């Protein structure tokens, strides 16, 4: 079985006019199914860039990203969209919920985009809301929720389509320690109980402690501990 995520010679260069900034330089990374991984490194070291490349939100300048044995660089927009909604789940630092939709609608977005009937997901939704502890907040809009609650909604949204991989960019970067640890416990539970592969970017040692492996990024290179 191939590794669930594999990067080969992955490089990313940003061009700002004449100046070229090499953010990632031949990154070789292998992540096996069921792993919980933290990516750490100083600000500006390219952590988010790496995560977005893995998620297919951005295109690499060189090298490849393989997800479940498929090279996403050669995928067309439709295929990569399907990959994002079925195989990947994203969680961002600023939650990124759709403000005019309520909790339920936000969580169900990936189902909606996948063209499935919402009704068949009722029980699934109930279960997930239970998991993230928001069963009594289904009709609230994001504005009426706290940061931690919003992040739980984002996690629920990432889970609804039962993806194999969850990509989280500083999921607790915007939360206080206690709330943050609550979120980390939730992620850990999802990793243990549902066997999902989780890749998170974080600055916090405490958060990193929940993961099984830490990858350090510095000067565009990976330094594994």
């Amino acid at each position, binding site marked *: 079985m191939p590794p669930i995520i594999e990067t080969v010679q992955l490089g990313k260069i940003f061009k700002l006019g004449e100046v070229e900034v090499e953010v990632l330089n031949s990154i070789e990374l292998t992540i096996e199914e069921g792993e919980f991984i933290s990516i750490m490194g100083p600000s500006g070291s390219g952590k*988010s860039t790496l995560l*977005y490349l893995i*998620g297919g*939100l*951005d295109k690499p300048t060189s090298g490849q990203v393989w997800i479940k044995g498929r090279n996403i660089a050669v995928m067309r*927009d*439709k295929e990569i*969209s*399907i*990959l*994002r*909604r*079925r195989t*990947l*789940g*994203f969680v*961002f630092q*600023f939650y*990124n*919920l*759709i*403000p*005019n*939709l309520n909790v339920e*609608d936000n969580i169900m*977005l*990936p189902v*909606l*985009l*996948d*063209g*499935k009937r*919402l009704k068949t997901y009722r029980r699934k939704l109930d279960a997930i809301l239970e998991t993230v502890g928001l069963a009594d907040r289904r009709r609230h809009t994001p*504005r009426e929720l706290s940061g931690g609650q919003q992040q739980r909604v984002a996690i629920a*949204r*990432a889970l609804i*389509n039962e993806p194999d991989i969850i990509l989280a960019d500083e999921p607790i970067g915007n939360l206080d320690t206690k709330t943050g640890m609550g979120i980390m416990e939730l992620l850990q539970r999802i990793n243990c109980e549902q066997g999902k592969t989780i890749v998170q970017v974080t600055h916090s040692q405490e958060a990193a402690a929940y993961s099984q492996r830490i990858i350090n990024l510095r000067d565009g290179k990976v330094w594994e501990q």
Partner: protein
Amino acid sequence: MRIIIKFILKNVWDKKLRTLLILVSVMLSSALYFATEALSDTAADMFLERMRVYYGTADLMIYPTQNSPSSFFSRNRAEQFMDDLEYIAGSIETSASLTHHGETLLFGVKGFTLPELEKWNPFFLAGEDHLLPFRGKKLIISKETAAEHGFKLGDYLELDLLGTKRKFYIAALAEPVGPFQDDGMNINVVVPIDTLATILNARGRVGTLYLKLKDPTYKGELMQKLSTAYSRYQVAETITDQQLKEYTQSLTTTFQMMGTVVLFMAVYIIYTSFKVITRERLPMIGTFRSIGATRKMTSLVLITESITYGVIGGLFGCGLGLFLLYLIILQIRPAFFATTAVTLRYSPEQLGQAFLLAVLIALVSSLLPILKIAKIPVKEIIFNTMSKPIRRKRWQPAIGLILIACAVFLPPNIPFQLLLPVGMLLIFASIIGFILLIPSLTNLFLTVFARVYHYIFGNEGILAAKNLRGNKGILNNISLLAIGISSLLMINTLSSSVATEVTNFYRNCNFQIWLWAWQADRNLEAILHKIKGVEATCGIYAANYLEITNHNDRINLVHGVNKYKYLDFWELDIDPVLMAELDTGRKILLTNNLRERMQVQKGDILTMKMARGERTYQIIGFFDSLMWNGNFALIAEKYMKMDMGRPYYDDLFIKTNLDPDSVSATIKKRLERRYPSVSTVADLEASNRQANASMFNVMQGFSLLALVIGIFGVFNNLIISFLERQRSLAVLRSIGMSKYQAVKMFFVEALTGGLIGGIIGALCGYLLILISPMILMAVAGKIPLHHSLSLYLSSILAGIFITVTASASPAMKSSKLDIVTAIKYE
């Protein structure tokens, strides 16, 4: 202060499209206002100018009537009033014909002395040859007409004058102004008055006297005196103020309505734009306030900004207004005017008013958002803790419903004088009512659509419906569409209804030729009957502008009719029994239009001021007719003859079984000495229809303008809402929305917005159409409106077309969106 202004300038520069939209809105409103205001003056001028070919600059004229002892009279009695007069000009007028290249040309021949002609109607010669002394068989002709027919200075024209051919020498060519204008009917030439007097046996006398007063306010008194002096002749004003007003009012009312619609849209666009502007500037305002700027200062800067829009828009608006006025005049002036240059008449005050209006619109529509912002405490702005205004305003739909209810259940008996203002008010009320109802109505529609969309558009449809709920940009678009579409609907329905009525009006004519001739009587009818093709004739006595003393009103046209023949020639919906009843006494039938106008009932008595004194007529019934805008009544011919002292018919309806054109040509020739005016009904209809068509062309141009601002506004709203939703869109893309799905979602949203806007516009339009008869009644008469289903459907389609087209650009942008950049930064 300076730094705030600098920030604003940068912001204005960055948002060019929005700035342009505000400027265009301001500009169009002031331009339309100006054009409408100036139009009535220019149109009045045009009317007067056009009439000058007949009346010169005279205030009063004296002429024989059918009852006068002779067609000619002495000017001596008028000359005793010379002290009060600027001039007296005497003329003899007749008609002539000329066969030229096989074609019969009709001439209007006026006899004048040159000095009097110069006073009566200033003219300019373009060339002369032995013009002086102006005696003998010489004539002056317009140089354009001459060129058109190949006449040259020094040519002889063999005019057929009262059956005898006489050669006239072309002694001068004149510029085609004043007495030498082309009036679209005859070729107008001037000959020495003595020459005509000799031919017509009228030595020393005149056929018409034209008088101009030194002091126009003395007109009424002088008319009295002249009437006594010339008791058996008619002393009349050349053009009454009433005529002038009627002519210009019908023209301007429609433009006022259009202008109001545009004004409405402009105010709405500026208001919504300023809401966005203030929202955007909030952080900046907060920062400045925190470092010491007062509320007044920041508000003042914003107000200055809005006034600047007003000033710039106003300046351009005045320019555009002049251009617009030019275009309108070009479009509505009669075809035979086409050769003369368009002269615009307007006063600096009108330009000033238009400019002021521009500033006022900008200021008033932006004031509310500006003041709202000023109320927010600095702390809340900086910490971004202000409650976002999502609270539903419950009073809005309630007031909206009340306003609409007012318009629907409008009090049925509104006095005639109040019809116009009340009608206008109700139009405003229904538009505002619908705007207030739009959020609730939109939600209602969305609930319905969301159900159906799943089946048509799949899950993207559901998503689109969810996105639309409570979306400000969409609500703004729907409002803009509703205003634009409803007013377009109203205008189009009005114009097509009027056109239909004109056609129907002539369809009621059961005759083919309409004749006016001098001293028409049974004798003339007998002559007509001998003409080949004339089948039947019906003579009619007509009286104009009869005063109704007990109602302080006037009836513009009364026909004295023959109960046996009239309905056979003119199919009015009148019970023959009523028709017969006319003959049983002084009875009168009124149009329903007059009934509503005078608020009278069957059995009421009208006291009419007639030639032989006041007479009372009893109303015996009502009918519908658009004759003279519905200001029309019928009495029996015998009472007309008696009370008006009329020995001669005023109009003759002629039925023919041959080609009406050739029959009317034969009649013209045969009756030459009686100066007939003969038209076929088909020609009358065509010219009427054409006059209407050019008017409605202009109106449709206006409504197109409204549509253009609408599209512009919709486009602006879509761009704004796209910018606001960029982040949400990136999020959707990150969780698996494909580019195709994004474009589809935009498309469905646009479609839905357009559909709802179209439907609400159609509903609002329907209401406006229900109200508009009140306004029509006040300005034109009772015109039944024809609702056209296809028009409603096409306006809904237009709504969809507009939003879908306007959303092409945001949809394109959405598929090019850089997800990472849009998502990364808060």
